[in-house]
């Protein structure tokens, strides 16, 4: 199956538009029953209309062409909001009885010392099924189960023990990631709440992102940027898979420390939330097996139905996170293409670029 054709997507949209409150969708030869299509998942406010489950499924179908390549071969975990972003949410990584069209992979987990089945979302039916379950936020590992083309010597045994997993290809990420998360409060937050999105904080975050990009660019390394869909920015540095997660984390930590030295008033690496106040948390700890930021185009739990949106560096000066929502992003992609087109192939050999061992 893989990435759906334009005709398949059109067909699913037609079925969704014609459906009453429930229907069994036919997509790529599989049946996906969907219900409560008119249930609002993001409440409306003022001029803004509510985003219903039908809108979510339409969104997922329309962006699937660009989103699925980022999910393919990667263990997935999701945050489910069965009653929308204002209802209870929970986090799920193992599934008891996934449908036949959804691929799963058994992976050892040190918590509980046992193997567990992870879902891998690699086709439109699985994506629609996840949407039906209210899985709004999708997180996929930075490593994947397949070895081609840059990790052919790594193992494919993921079960039995931590040691086996350590040696496997799942311990070698495709990216070093930086999560720039502003703890610059607007002042309107209620007690204990997380910082809200506001212009000053986002401007500071974008300046920091541009500086990190410029510094890495001067070393010959290209980074890619997306909005987190909430308040911050995510930077991805695609790499050849010859560094394991620990090494990727070391690389990210080195860059984070450098940013801290450079902008001590803007950057914090502090683990204590209270001490991050007023600064941008440069989180390098996401470079860890089993952790993940929201995948590109994943919806987020924000009142305006924002998504985590890849952007072009030259756009970064003028964009704002709320520009990218479930309503706007499909049109943007269809009209202007994917800013992250090519990222999965743009692998960089850190050792060679930096001249490790006398090379370069």
């Amino acid at each position, binding site marked *: 199956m893989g990435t759906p054709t334009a005709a398949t997507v059109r067909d699913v949209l037609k079925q969704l538009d014609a459906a009453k409150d429930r229907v069994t969708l036919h997509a790529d030869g599989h049946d996906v029953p969907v219900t409560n299509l008119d249930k609002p998942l993001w409440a409306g406010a003022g001029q803004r209309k509510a985003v219903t489950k039908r809108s979510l499924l339409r969104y997922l179908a329309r962006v699937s062409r660009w989103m699925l390549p980022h999910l393919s071969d990667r263990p997935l*975990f999701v*945050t489910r909001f069965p009653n929308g972003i204002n209802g209870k*949410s*929970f*986090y799920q*990584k193992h599934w008891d009885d996934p449908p036949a069209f959804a691929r799963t992979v058994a992976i050892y987990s*040190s*918590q509980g010392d046992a193997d567990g089945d992870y879902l891998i979302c690699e086709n439109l039916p699985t994506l629609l099924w996840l949407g039906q379950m209210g899985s709004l936020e999708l*997180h996929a590992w930075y490593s994947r189960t397949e070895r081609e083309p840059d990790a052919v010597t790594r193992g494919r045994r993921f079960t039995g023990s931590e040691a086996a997993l350590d040696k496997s290809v799942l311990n070698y990420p495709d990216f070093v990631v930086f*999560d720039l*998360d502003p703890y610059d409060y607007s002042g309107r937050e209620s*007690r*204990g*709440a*997380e910082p809200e999105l506001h212009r000053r904080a986002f401007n500071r975050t974008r300046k920091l992102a541009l500086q990190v990009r410029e*510094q890495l660019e*001067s*070393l010959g390394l290209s980074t890619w940027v997306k909005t*987190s869909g*909430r*308040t*911050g920015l*995510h930077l991805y540095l695609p790499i050849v898979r*010859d*560094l*394991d*997660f*620990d*090494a990727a984390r*070391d*690389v990210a*930590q*080195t*860059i984070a*420390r*450098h940013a*801290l*030295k*450079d902008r*001590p*008033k803007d950057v914090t690496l502090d683990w204590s939330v*209270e001490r991050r106040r007023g600064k941008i948390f440069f*989180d390098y*700890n996401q470079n*860890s*097996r*089993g*952790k993940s*930021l*929201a995948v590109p185009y994943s919806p987020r*739990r924000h009142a305006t139905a924002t998504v985590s949106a890849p952007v072009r560096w030259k756009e970064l000066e003028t964009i704002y996170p709320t520009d990218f929502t479930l309503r706007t992003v499909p049109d943007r992609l269809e009209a202007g293409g994917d800013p992250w087109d090519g990222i999965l192939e743009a692998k960089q050999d*850190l*050792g060679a670029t*930096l*001249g*490790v*061992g006398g090379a370069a």
Partner: protein
Amino acid sequence: MARAIWSGSIGFGMVSIPVKLFGATESKDISFHLLHATCGTRLKQVRWCPTDEQEVPWNETVRGYEFGKDQYVTLTDEDFEKLPLPSKHTIELSAFVKAEEIDPVYYERSYHLAPDERGEKPYALLLQTLEKKGLTALAAITIRKKEQLCALRPKDGALMLETLYYPDEIRAQPEVELDKAKITERELEMAFTLIDLLRKPFDPEEYKDHYREALSQLIEAKLDGRDVVKSPAGRETKVIDLADALRQSVEAAKKGKPKPAARPRARTSARRATRKVS
């Protein structure tokens, strides 16, 4: 907002009030780290055994109580676990007193008490009762393994909890000999006049820590002027140094550096993943 440091319930007769406890005060003192002045590296504390002349890992340590000069009785974790902790998760109210009856010397730390889930109603009842009667409740609470006396009082529409010292933790006053100090009427009059001049309502906003303000300004100025001592671990101010540091990271990884035994692993429990939301 700080995270709750304790949660449990207030036992008030037959009623149980679920509550959370938050620290009400914080010290704003600026703290410093000790660096090696010649190279700028942050100094490490080492647990050193002078007998074996070696550094001692945590798992080879044990707590010893010095009962005589150089003579210790040792206590293990199991010993500590055996100790009784009657009020582990409850604040059992035992008496009601007038606030003035508690001398300020007994007050140790202040906490805010907030109702936990479904605790609002009984919380409000206790609060209003204390407000209307003008009383403070005495109770016991166990925080960080230590049982302490505490006082609960209403303040600005919420309950506050102050931990109290036990009487044997209060030192006796030194003997003060005043018999020979004779005060004249005139001296008293003058002192009264001076006091009347300075008499005003208490406004804590008027008082600032001038030393801390000056210190913060000095630190800010040093940061602005980049008058920063860099530890060798992160001594990269130019991109070229970033390249060096990165090269070292990658090189170490490729050589298969020995991994630290207890590197924090990916923790993907439900709780953390939903809290971390970027």
